[in-house]
């Protein structure tokens, strides 16, 4: 069964895109990430124009993160105050990001810029996560208690003003680092067509030292609004949100993410992190491969101008 996509202007198989949404949604629920870092490259691989993939991917992220955020919220795993502070920065970053997409597309460097961002961020963060999570997994297996928070350790973050008390995270820190992290992630989100969980979750754990229990929920909570804002900007600025494609991905995605969340309950945090890290590294290597190996077709059409 096929359906014609009004913005992408092509006829696609309903089942393929429902399945893609479900698969990405499952991982999204499992790891607490938007899943965009998988969805956007896969959509492009299936022939969706890159700009439409980025814009429509944002709509899919709204749905799967709402679904995941509600589930986490009911388990009291969302630090709303922290989420709002990050969101304030996130909206600014998203605006700058969508503007950067427009300028890069005009200059003809969008594809390469996105690929380089994928390789850099997914590669570095994935590798660091993999090393760290493997170490902590080994420690847990050896019976040693995982060092959750090294008390007494201070860094420059503690010296910043605008200190706020984040009760749910049991933190008393400046509002500036979370807002800056939010802004940076919002920028990447708009540019890469991702939710940004893969950057935000490590940042929350390692930089803000938030308890792992609230990291996933708070990240999802913030992603809901950043992704919604990205949909709005992409639709208005670039006309690249395909509502039919979005609905196909969403129907698959919301179901998948519920199963993912349930599956996530059965796995330990360390295991989840090793798996997520491995997945991130694989995607980074795949994108790097395309950048380094000579393409079979050197020519391509520029996007809609």
């Amino acid at each position, binding site marked *: 069964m*096929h*359906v*014609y996509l*009004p*913005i992408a*202007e*092509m*006829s696609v198989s309903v089942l393929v895109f429902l399945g893609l949404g479900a698969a990405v949604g499952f991982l999204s629920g499992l790891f607490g990430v938007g899943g965009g870092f998988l969805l956007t490259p896969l959509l492009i691989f299936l022939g969706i124009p890159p700009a439409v993939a980025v814009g429509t991917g944002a*709509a*899919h992220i*709204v*749905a*799967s*993160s*709402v*679904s*995941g955020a*509600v*589930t986490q919220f*009911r388990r009291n795993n969302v630090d709303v105050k922290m989420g709002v502070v990050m969101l304030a920065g996130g909206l600014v970053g998203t605006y700058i990001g969508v503007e950067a997409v427009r300028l890069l597309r005009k*200059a*003809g*460097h969008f*594809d*390469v810029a996105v690929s*380089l961002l994928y390789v850099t961020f997914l590669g570095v963060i994935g590798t660091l996560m993999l090393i760290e999570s493997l170490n902590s997994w080994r420690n847990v297996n050896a019976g040693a208690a995982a060092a959750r928070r090294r008390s007494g350790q201070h860094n420059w973050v503690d010296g910043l003003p605008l200190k706020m008390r984040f009760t749910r995270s049991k933190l008393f820190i400046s509002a500036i680092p979370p807002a800056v992290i939010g802004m940076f992630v919002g920028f990447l989100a708009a540019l890469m067509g991702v939710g940004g969980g893969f950057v935000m979750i490590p940042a929350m754990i390692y930089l803000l030292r938030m308890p792992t229990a609230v990291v996933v929920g708070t990240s999802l909570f913030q992603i*809901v609004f950043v992704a*919604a804002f990205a*949909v*709005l900007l*992409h*639709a*208005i600025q670039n*006309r690249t*949100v395909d*509502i*039919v494609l*979005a*609905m196909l991905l*969403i*129907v698959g995605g*919301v*179901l998948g*993410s*519920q199963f993912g969340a*349930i599956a996530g309950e059965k796995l330990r945090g360390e295991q989840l992190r090793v798996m997520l890290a491995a997945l991130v590294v694989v995607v980074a290597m795949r994108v790097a491969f*395309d*950048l*380094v*190996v*000579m*393409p079979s*077709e*050197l*020519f*391509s*059409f*520029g*996007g809609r*101008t």
Partner: protein
Amino acid sequence: MRLRAVSFAGLAMLALVLVQSNASEAQDSRLPVESVEADVSTRSVSITSGFTGTEIIIFGAVENSRQPSAEAGTYDVVIVVEGTHQPLVVRKKAQVGGLWVNADQVRFASFPSYYAIASTRPIDEIAEHDVQKKNQIGFEHIRMVRSGRAYIGEADPLETIEFREAVVRLKERDRLYVTAEHGVIFIGRSLFRATITLPPNVPVGPLTARVMLFKDGALLGSYKSNVNMQREGLERFLYDSAFERPMLYALATILLAALAGLGAAFAFQRSAPT
């Protein structure tokens, strides 16, 4: 009224005389000159949610045909169906610091979004290159205007040909430029027909169909017709919304997405035995 009828009759007479004198000059015979009449099976193609490509049939007849049978091959027919002409940017990758990046780009002011050509036999056998070029028959003779300006790097003007070939290659890959060398078939002494396939990814916009009649490498007559192609129903509503009311369109998308997410979260909570 009467005056008009009289002037019409006069004009018709004049035209007849002109045609006959023309015919006697060109053909050096008393036989009436051949011409072509044609039409398309459908004047409008609707793009709906279920659109998976379509076929249009172009049929026509050679007036005053002198060929003894359908197989005689006295006449050649070339049919060209073109989409709207649009500006096009073509980019070429090159290795920079070990990475394959877009290094050169050429902007063409106009290139047909779709180009299908069907003929009774390969076009090079039908007419010389200058005739092909004059009538814009074949991928090589598609009229294109290069409008320089927006470069990433400085593509050498001589390299434009490379970019031009790339357009044709990429369009052929997407089945948007198609050739059917024996796509036009004579059914009788004068009747012919051809089927043109529009793929699912055909760019939406009006199509122009040109039917050209050749004999001994010379163009005897041609006929032009238009086919409308437009979005219909839900497809049209969504497209118009996205382009004319993007804010509303975006909010509707977000609302649907959020409701789907919420719906799933609550549905699962009720059914889950937690």
